[in-house]
């Protein structure tokens, strides 16, 4: 994906196609992680349905609404960000329902979920502002770019903590117990 991104930038001076594909793929990847973190069959089915929905919407958006030749897929981004926030809140709720004896700071699930909720809610704001500002308000969008970079940096820090704290036996506590079906 990175090589495709670089090729597109070199040849077309932007990375629109890459962004359209990447937005859908990122959501599918995150949704699949949540799919394996939840045991409840309704939530699992909803996650699968959302993956299909996002895939279809991405195609429609890329060809009809925000064409891949001229616009970034901010609508798809906002939709996937909202869905990711919903999944993160659901997992937080599940964690509250079945708390373990392990300190929450040592749980990778908590850090992963925090990363997702911080990243997606910040990017939702950035996407919304990026949609709103151009043509309406006379503002240089460089500040949005740094906000975006800051959020991504924070996201990677949380993900790093999640990887460092990842222990199968702790993770299994959330995955294994019987969820009310």
């Amino acid at each position, binding site marked *: 994906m990175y090589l495709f991104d670089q090729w597109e930038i070199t040849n077309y001076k932007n990375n629109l196609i890459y962004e359209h594909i990447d937005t859908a793929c990122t959501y599918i990847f995150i949704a699949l992680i949540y799919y394996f973190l939840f045991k409840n069959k309704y939530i699992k089915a909803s996650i699968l349905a959302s993956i299909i929905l996002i895939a279809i919407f991405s195609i429609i958006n890329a060809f009809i609404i925000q064409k891949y030749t001229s616009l970034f897929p901010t609508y798809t981004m906002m939709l996937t960000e909202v869905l990711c926030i919903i999944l993160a809140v659901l997992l*937080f709720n599940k*964690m*509250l329902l079945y*708390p*373990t*004896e392990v300190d*929450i*700071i040592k749980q990778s699930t908590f850090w992963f979920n*925090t990363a997702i*909720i*911080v990243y997606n*809610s*910040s990017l939702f*704001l950035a996407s919304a*502002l990026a949609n709103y*500002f151009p043509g309406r*308000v*006379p*503002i*240089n969008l460089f*500040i*949005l770019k740094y*906000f975006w970079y800051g959020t991504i940096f924070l996201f990677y820090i949380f993900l790093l903590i999640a990887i460092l704290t990842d222990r199968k036996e702790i993770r299994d506590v959330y995955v294994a117990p019987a969820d009310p079906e």
Partner: protein
Amino acid sequence: MWHLQIQNENIGQLVSLTGILFALLAGFIAYFVILYRNKQQKNLREREQLEASFRQEVLKTQIEVQDQTLNYISTEIHDNITQVLSFVKLSLAGLVSSADAEKKTKITEVRELVAQTITDLRDLSKSLSFEQISSLGLAKTIEREVERINKSGLLEVSLDREGKEYPLGQQRELVLFRIFQETLNNTLKHAGAKHMKIVLHYQADLFNLTVEDDGAGFSAGMIAQKHGSGLKNIENRASLIGGSASIVSSPHKGCCTKITLNPQKPQLYTDGGTHQNSSS
């Protein structure tokens, strides 16, 4: 100029908006962490309570089963073995008239031994049965037990009663008596003691049962090696009736077991009429 002012205002608004968002997110995460930790604490407390209650229930059942078994043995001794021995005694009495002088002496000796055995078995039967506790109360039952031990010559036991006696409740007194029996049994089996002192101390809001001997004693290490389930039993039984047990001992310095309880304090093991079997 106007254009630049508008742009600065918008940048200010954007920074504020971002600040609010991050503050909200940080607040949400902090709130979640606090909520999660509170839930963890609550669950831990509930689990500890459940475990304690489970342990108490198991102990309660153990005591009930043990009491029923002892009661059954007591009934069997009283109704069966002593009756047979009484019949043997009577039969021996019948033989006396037809025997010569030498045999008469022997038969009379055997009759006396049988009579002694019947008396001992009756005493043992009473000490095993909780009927005695129900009818006589703790102090009197311990007094009888002391008399029995003194009569046997195994130990020299003294009993002191301090304060005005009051009933502690049938179940509590039964458990206290079983603790006393366990202590007595330990002394007879392991301590090699010559003297034992029992003190029953009654106060308005405090009751103490102290059992002290001058036996071999033991150290904490010796108990750990032998698992010390008997002593653990004493502590568990004491906690079951809302009391506490303190066992103080050191090698060659005897042992002192003290059960303390507040009679006003509600207890888990209440008088619920669990003992319906009785021995006559």
